[in-house]
């Protein structure tokens, strides 16, 4: 099948979108499809540049470019999903957030307000026109429903390096990989460490704006011997950290999806999460593949102590998590099949 994948390119601003796109293109190539990736140069400012790009995409017809047959167009981002094709499949990563959940009418400039109107109109029209509409996660589908009144089917995909995650005998530490941001709530785990009774270390990987804040907390509580901010770690280190952990903590606030939950399940590790964590709640089964606790340090510490005291049961939970992952049937071939059969 000849497939055109569209996505944006903001030069040298890399993020999760890149990994997602790479995963998809790799899976399509492995599936034996003929692939072209069309990347639209995206600049956030000025508003006019977005308008222009939107106009450009909205007028682009990719049904038979230069007489060449294109069987499918798969789009991941705004404004690529506006490109015309009779069999256009949209797998929405997220919309242009500045005019959706981040938009505040009180402070918006006339230009932004104008842009918001045009984007809303563009999105509603383009997404309605799409042959099939998928969302990256349940949360993204919810927002689409809320703002555009459109229904999308959540379609989950495996995290990068899914095949390389492995499980080994647990060392005494809880692992929490994430960007060091307030919404990821590393402080919950740092505070929890003050209540730990068992000799379990806490390893936090990732970098971010809150690094100094979190380091300050560790300093203030004199937890150097127990907690370590590892900074950004490379692929190997990440795999090893997952593999040797006693459990993985992932308790962000209202996360969209969160690769961490999936990665921990792939590495056969129990996941500790919180009742208000959003995405992880779709995967973690309380008491079976991990624990869902109140977002309170004492509750989290108690669960960690329990896992340390019941290592065999912790390992069983990890295996149950892996089994749950297997049962969910999340795989790139499945994603490809869903996208292309739509």
């Amino acid at each position, binding site marked *: 099948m000849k497939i055109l994948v569209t996505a944006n390119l903001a030069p040298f*601003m890399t993020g999760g979108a890149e990994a997602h796109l790479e995963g998809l293109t790799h899976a399509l190539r492995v599936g034996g499809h003929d692939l072209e990736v069309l990347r639209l140069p995206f600049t*956030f400012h000025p508003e006019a540049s977005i308008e222009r790009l939107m106009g450009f995409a909205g007028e682009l017809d990719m049904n038979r470019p230069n007489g060449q047959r294109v069987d499918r167009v798969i789009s991941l981002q705004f404004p690529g999903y506006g490109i015309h094709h009779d069999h256009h499949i949209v797998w929405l990563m997220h919309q242009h957030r500045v005019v959706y959940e981040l938009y505040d009418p009180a402070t918006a*400039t006339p230009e932004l307000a104008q842009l918001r109107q045009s984007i809303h109109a563009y999105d509603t029209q383009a997404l309605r026109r799409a042959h099939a509409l998928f969302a990256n996660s349940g949360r993204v589908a919810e927002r689409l429903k809320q703002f555009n009144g459109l229904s999308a089917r959540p379609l989950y995909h495996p995290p990068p390096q899914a095949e390389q995650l492995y499980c080994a005998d647990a060392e005494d530490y809880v692992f929490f990989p994430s960007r060091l941001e307030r919404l990821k709530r590393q402080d919950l785990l740092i505070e929890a460490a003050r209540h730990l009774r068992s*000799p379990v270390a806490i390893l936090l990987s990732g970098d971010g704006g809150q690094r100094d804040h979190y380091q300050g907390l560790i300093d203030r509580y004199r937890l150097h011997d127990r907690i370590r901010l590892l*900074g950004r770690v*490379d692929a190997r280190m990440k795999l090893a950290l997952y593999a*040797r952990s006693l459990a993985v903590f992932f308790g962000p606030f209202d996360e969209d999806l969160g690769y961490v939950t999936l990665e921990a399940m792939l590495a056969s590790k129990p996941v500790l999460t919180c009742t208000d964590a959003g995405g992880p709640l779709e995967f973690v089964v309380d008491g079976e593949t991990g624990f869902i606790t109140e977002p309170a340090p004492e509750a989290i510490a108690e669960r960690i102590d329990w896992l340390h005291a019941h290592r065999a049961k912790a390992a069983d939970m990890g295996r149950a998590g892996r089994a749950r992952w297997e049962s969910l049937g999340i795989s790139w071939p499945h994603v490809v099949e869903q996208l292309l059969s739509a």
Partner: protein
Amino acid sequence: MPQPIDINQLLGRVRAEAESLDLPEYPHPTPTQNLTLHEEPDTSARGAAGVAHIQSLLMAPRELFLHEAYRSLFRRDADSSGISHYQGMLTEGHSRAEVLYAMARSSEGRALGVKIGGLGWRALLCRWSLKFRKYSPDRIHSALLAGRGGKLGMLARLIPTRLLRLFLVPFRINHLPGKWLRAWENRLAAPFAIVGQWVLEQQKHSEKIIHALKKHEEERLGQLHAHKEHASQTENDLRQSIATQASRQHELEKTLDWLRYSVSRQWHQALGSTPPHMAALPETLTAEQEALDAFYIAFEDACRGSEADIREGLLVYLDRVRRSAAAQGHPIIDIGCGRGEWLRILKDEGFMARGVDQSAAMVERATAYGLDVEQGDAVAALARLPEASVGGVTGFHIVEHLPFPVLFRLFAEVSRVLAPGGIAIFETPNPENVLVGSHTFYHDPTHRNPITPTFITFLAQYHGLAEIEIVRLHPYPEAAKVPGHDPLTERVNGHLCGPQDFALVAYRPRPA
């Protein structure tokens, strides 16, 4: 709070595992990792504060700087995550001083109590730079564009892009410490840079020389290998030719043996058909003869050893008889067989064995054991046998009883009756032992003269027998010897306590 966790050890284990993972699609970001600039610093004080002087690290080549820094500050090899983190700082334009300062301020650096020497007041610059690192104008700009920054961000996004850039200009102040520190480092490192360049050139030059040397060595090794091969070929050839020579010589010797034998056979034709009688005593003395026989048997019984001793003494010859192919198919004749101890051994081993003895009493005894023994004159008995009809002729303590003409005829007959390859064994007292020659030989009144090895060897050769071997037997026990190993003692022991008997072993040659 109980703290039995060693987080550094724990991390060390995880890091080691991570480094050992095989991920071909993620190229290792540190290709220079196995380069070592100098020996590992003394790590006996592991966990003690790492103190690094900044100047020593400014000299390190760019690709080695971080590895050096890890060794001096953290006393361990760098891991790829750490490298990529700090490499990122360098790429962003931070100075080495800032990177070292950041390492010292990291959790690991703090846990180890790492200190950076030589920074002085510039440590404040590092601190400033790291503190406000995240407020670099580029970072703020992209964060704002991506929709971050809350209410303030929202306000900032209201400003047109060009103005926003202007608005961010004050943040450029954050670049200053890095800039100053880089300038300072360049000033410090300038003299070293020249040395460094020189060292690099020298290194390249050395590598070239090493390469050339290696090539040369390989060539020489190749040549040596070829030489060695040639030499071993030559050696093989030589060995083969020596072997060929030896086998040819052996054949020649065999032929010579056969020729000698044939000549001796020619001479034997001249000998009469009736051999000289051994005793040649008048028939009238038969009664007296019987009395003498009786005496002799009594004497022998008194002097002979136990049956087991005799048997054991005879086993020496059994091996030789077994090895003789002729003895397998032809009878073995034991002359002067006495009670037949040897015949019994041969019989037990499955050989055809026949005995001849003059003494009627002995023959009677041997026959009683079921042995095939005839009474009569040995030489006459052999003379009656057809040529080449016997596998072996043996005689124990016989030859010293015979007058020379009879002995001569005995050997002639032995030579005639033996089949090709047949074996002859004659045991006799050994006169090389002075005590035997002067004393014990004369215990037996029927002994004539001691037979020497030299004489009997010649006699056998004369009659065409070959592959002659003299086996010396029955030395005095060690206890009887004079103690000591000096030449005189050795000689005394050799003459007085040496083998008391010897045997001639000879074979009839095969036709060449």
